[in-house]
């Protein structure tokens, strides 16, 4: 029946609109983290750009729901490790030469990335999650961490990504071995 289809369409629009609103409201506190990081970081524009990207990805994941929704919180928490580490390292009195700050900041990005990768992997293995969860949680964690590492430059982001990948490997191997048929 036409009118029933129309009612169903309208109900579907309301359902999606409510989910978008809930996702925006639910993830809004993260904007406070972005604002604080923007205030503390040496390159606020890059930090805020990554923050906006992280917020957008988080809202989309929360709106979509299911497994992806469950990736948001662990992703943000894991990403806070490199973010806080790098923002603290920025405040340490040392010499940073342009985009290459090999002494404190890049190691902080890499170590933060490793810790974040290990944390994400432990959550993924514990929940025996599928690839979509792994991608979503990694994206959120990397974008959160990149808010801090962006102030070090491309080298910082590369250090974060490498560290994160290295931290993720043991968990992925464990998951692969557990899923392999006996």
């Amino acid at each position, binding site marked *: 029946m036409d*009118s*029933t289809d129309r*009612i*169903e369409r*309208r*109900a*579907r629009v*309301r*359902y999606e*609109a*409510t*989910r978008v609103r*809930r996702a925006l409201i639910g993830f809004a506190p993260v904007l406070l983290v972005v604002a604080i990081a923007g205030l503390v970081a040496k390159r606020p524009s890059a930090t805020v750009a990554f923050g906006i990207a992280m917020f957008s990805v988080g809202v989309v994941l929360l*709106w*979509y*729901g*299911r497994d992806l*929704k469950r990736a948001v919180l662990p992703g943000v928490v894991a990403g806070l490790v490199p973010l806080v580490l790098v923002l603290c390292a920025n405040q340490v009195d040392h010499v940073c030469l342009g985009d290459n700050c090999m002494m404190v900041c890049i190691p902080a990005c890499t170590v933060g990335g490793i810790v974040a990768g290990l944390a994400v992997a432990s959550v993924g293995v514990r929940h025996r999650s599928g690839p979509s969860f792994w991608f979503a949680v990694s994206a959120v964690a990397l974008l959160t961490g990149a808010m801090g590492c962006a102030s070090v430059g491309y080298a910082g982001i590369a250090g974060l990504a490498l560290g994160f990948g290295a931290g993720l490997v043991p968990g992925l191997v464990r998951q692969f071995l557990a899923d392999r048929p006996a």
Partner: protein
Amino acid sequence: MDTNQDATLDALVARLADGDRSAFTPVFQILWPPILRLCMSMLKHEADAADAAQQAMEKIFARASDYDRARPAMPWALAIAAWECRTIARKRHRRREASKDTAADPSFDGAEDELVQRDLTRAALEALGQLSESDRETLVATFWDEAASVSGATLRKRRERALDRLRGAFRRLYGLD
């Protein structure tokens, strides 16, 4: 509706709350006939019932993400539909009062108005019953404007908290703000 279908609906609405869009159409198809029937039986007017059922469906799906898995889905959905019917009945009654033409339509009379009023009172009392003794006392004292044994600021704060909890209980029971 049998127990099996109830369980199916509960599971489908829970999936919808989690974001599984494939549950949307089945939930709609299960809910639409009983909700339309309920609206027809409450409003006894085809156009008003169709309006109420449509608005109820929109509200049900708007609130689907808040669905509490511990509660059965059908009574939850019917409570929302019943609320829409009451709202439409109240509007209709006000319209009639404004036009002073209440006697012309046999489908709506004082008895129906009384029924709506009684339903609302019962709903409010049920929500009030969910509160603690002290919250109830605070709200009753507010209603009767009784002087309490506490200072004005403290009473105001207690009243605000009690009203918040009453709203919460109402929302839990009927899924409504």
